[in-house]
């Protein structure tokens, strides 16, 4: 397998012979980082979910910001002291937040509500206490903990705070009476009923939860989750099925899965990194087939993931014969598919399949420059819903998670920085071993 032949401590590829790609990626990465500057609340360090006015905070976006600061420091976009200060603001706020689990608290049992008021940090939109979004937040905090290793008072406090937040999370509680982690909880009704089976973005959640020295998961939890996996041969590719691309990307922002295997992947003679490469190829294949006949789809125009859709902003199209969707987790091959694509989803597959990603990104940017504003990806564009000017419908919002995953995955592609930091994180190593991962750099 190609991925196992690579030096696991090196970035995926550093090809100086393509300076245009380097410059291209640098522009995108820096633009993505700018989102976290614009979305930052200097009072409490929280990060807005989207670029829209009055957007609440998304705790996962805070996690991506915490991992983005080290990247910015390394690239000279931000002073180290500034990065530490911003991180400390968020971490202190979270430490001191109301963890009573009341309807207007910030969190419960060390977990956090999905969306928080940007100013007060209390729950908004009656959102759920989100297990996976908390995991992304903690992953960001631990990334910062691994990067800011100087003995200054600020960096020492930062590390202690990250540790404290991680250790406070009661992962065991999040199982409820089930064998796997529940997707969410609300004070009004307890654990949510939503099924959360099959492969998805949750490996990082299970890894962190398994490694917890304070509230670890039950021994069988990860195996119970992987028991719901489906290994499929689709379009000629053997892969662990997951429809939307984000499922194949989010955990990979933090963890270098090249060459390490859990029990399932040993049985399949594959690894999760290679699997994400195949998932990207499956998306490309689907776009080439284009079974629903949408505009622009092709080998260099794909990207199906969770994101905005036309009916969020153009409710009048909901009445058309063809079905359009608003925010949805678009996936292949079973949809939902309404012609809406995501440029950020393509770019976030860069480490897995750089050749097809760069090729697609260049073409998509050229054909649909409107998908980017200030070089930041919009949360979805739809060439099948072009306006009179021929330009594709474009979401008017930019989402923190999209910018975060683009930023981190480009960095992992260019230098492997985040992977390298987290490879040395004892919690991550312990969690990987606890969930049965072996081999490679582990």
């Amino acid at each position, binding site marked *: 397998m190609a991925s196992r032949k690579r030096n696991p401590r090196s970035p995926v590829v550093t090809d100086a012979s393509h300076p245009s790609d380097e410059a291209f990626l640098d522009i995108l990465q820096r633009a993505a980082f700018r989102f976290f500057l614009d979305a930052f609340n200097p009072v409490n360090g929280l990060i807005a979910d989207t670029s829209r006015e009055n957007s609440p905070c998304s705790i996962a976006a805070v996690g991506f910001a915490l991992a983005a600061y080290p990247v910015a420091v390394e690239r000279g976009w931000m002073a180290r002291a500034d990065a530490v200060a911003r991180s400390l603001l968020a971490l202190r706020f979270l430490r001191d937040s109301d963890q009573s689990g009341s309807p207007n608290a910030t969190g419960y049992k060390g977990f956090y509500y999905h969306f928080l008021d940007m100013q007060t940090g209390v729950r908004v939109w009656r959102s759920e206490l989100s297990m996976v979004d908390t995991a992304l937040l903690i992953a960001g905090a631990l990334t910062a903990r691994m990067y800011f290793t100087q003995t200054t008072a600020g960096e020492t406090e930062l590390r202690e705070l990250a540790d404290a937040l991680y250790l406070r999370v009661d992962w065991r509680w999040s199982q409820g009476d089930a064998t796997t982690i529940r997707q969410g909880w609300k004070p009004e009704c307890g654990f949510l*009923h939503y*099924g959360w089976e099959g492969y998805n973005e949750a490996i990082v959640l299970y890894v962190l939860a398994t490694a917890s020295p304070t509230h670890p998961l039950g021994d069988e939890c990860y195996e119970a989750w992987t028991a719901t996996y*489906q*290994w*499929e041969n*689709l379009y000629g590719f053997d892969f662990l099925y997951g429809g939307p691309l984000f499922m194949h990307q989010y955990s990979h922002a933090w963890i270098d899965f090249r060459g390490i295997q859990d029990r399932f992947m040993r049985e*399949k003679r594959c690894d999760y990194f290679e699997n994400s490469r195949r998932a990207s190829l499956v998306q490309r294949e689907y776009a080439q*087939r284009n*079974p629903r006949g949408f505009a622009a789809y092709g080998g260099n125009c794909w990207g199906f993931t969770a994101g905005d859709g036309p009916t969020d902003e153009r409710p009048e199209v909901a009445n058309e014969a063809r079905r359009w969707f608003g925010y949805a987790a678009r996936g292949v091959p*079973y949809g939902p598919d309404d012609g809406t694509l995501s440029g950020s989803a393509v770019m976030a597959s860069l480490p897995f399949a750089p050749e097809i990603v760069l090729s697609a990104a260049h073409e998509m940017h050229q054909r649909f420059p409107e998908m980017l504003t200030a070089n930041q990806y919009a949360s979805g564009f739809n060439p099948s819903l072009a306006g009179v000017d021929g330009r594709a419908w474009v979401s008017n919002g930019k989402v923190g998670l999209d910018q975060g995953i683009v930023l981190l995955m480009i960095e992992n592609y260019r230098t492997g920085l985040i992977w390298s930091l987290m490879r040395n994180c004892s919690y991550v190593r312990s969690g990987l071993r606890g969930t049965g991962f072996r081999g490679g750099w582990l």
Partner: protein
Amino acid sequence: MLERNFAYTPAFDDAHSRERLERLHPPQWRNPRPVDRYDLAVIGGGPAGLVAAHGAAAFGARVALIERDLLGGDCLNIGCVPSKTLIRTSRVYAEMRDAARYGAHLPAEIRVDFPAVMQRMRAIRARLSRVDSVDRLAAAGVDVFFGGGRFVAPDALTIDGTRLHFRKAVIATGARPDTPSIPGLVEAGFLTNENVFDLTELPRRLLVIGGGPLGCELAQVFCRFGVHTTIAQDMPLFLPKEERDAAQILSDAFARDGIEVRLNTTAIRVRVENGQKWVDLVNDDYHDSVAVDAILTGTGRLPNVEDLGLDSAGVEADSITGVRVDDFLRTSNPRIYAAGDACLEHKFTHTADASARIVVRNALFKGRQRLSALTVPWCTYTDPEIAHVGLYVREARDRNIPVKTFTVPMHDVDRAITDSEDAGFVKIHVRERTDRILGATIVARHAGEMINEITLAMVAGIGLRTLSNVIHAYPTQAEAIRKAADAYSRTRLTPTIQSLLARWVSW
């Protein structure tokens, strides 16, 4: 002659209903005088009972069949047969509305003639009642008794005071709808499969409670008849036993049809205010109410094990799981067996049929046929249909069987594309690194027809390798199965084999 039994009155009195009644429970019928001892007494004249009775009689056994209501059981009268006729008509309406997609003109007006729909259903039901008729049973030598049969001893039962002795018996009493315990539901009135086929006019607004096969099929039917239909399912997906992708495609199809889909939603109360039915729904922390004209429940089925005198016969039974049987379908009384919905987890007509065949062999001929040896397919006749046979991936993994799935989306199948029926897939599960089929799920317009090929392969021990060599007529949707087999064959081409083949060809 014995006293005449109680009369069964059909809800709808027309020529078709009278014809069906004449065949399935003739008003003038008089029960025969019983023989000294029957080789087989069959309690229940549904699919399982009829198969057992005809099967045993064909072997020369003296057979008594006792039926409380109508021969043919739920399947013919209030189940598969009427529902499939309505499904067919509803597809016609769906296609009329979708005419433009086929390059055809949309009719100026699409008016649903519900009385005509129901008349067609009754005519077809009457036609099919010939097969299950009392005349055929009598001609086969079966003594048919109408009335409520009760065991009074381990080897005897009574029908309206007449005692029947038997050497062996089979309980094939079927099942009935399980009424959900929703406060106010009974008072407000509701439909089940037992009365929905007696409707004479369409409700304007319908709430279907339950997302199992019956609820899903009928929700789509009524929606396509123009009824504003809401379906509430208290789980994350419809058809919870089916795999996630199948249920997801069904959810999308429902939404496309215009059904208001309410997943993770529980009906907690039914109220009638000023003659208007309101149903209170809750989804986690979200509460709301819907105003409806009719409520249809499809929340499972309960076995008919009451009022049978099972204790007198020493037969153990549970009100939820039914008559307790072993793998040979024998009850706790070695003389008495059970078949069909009264004892089976999978309550289908074809499993009732198959279990009755096992009973005849095991009860009369000391056979040792096992229920667990059956390979049972099933299908939910929504559009698209969802069919399954064998193991699900989850079941295989629970048994530590390494499993791999070969998936062919229907959008890769020419005939599905020509027919604009390309939503769905064929998924065939095999043991990893072998071609042995463990199970399959098919989602396609005609999945019920297609699953039979996989079932045949499994029963005959045919693997994907052989299926890859089976020529399928082109263009057919069943080609998807051959494509899955071809995908398997391609995975056998390791890089080494590929390079050897390349060298051979170039040489």
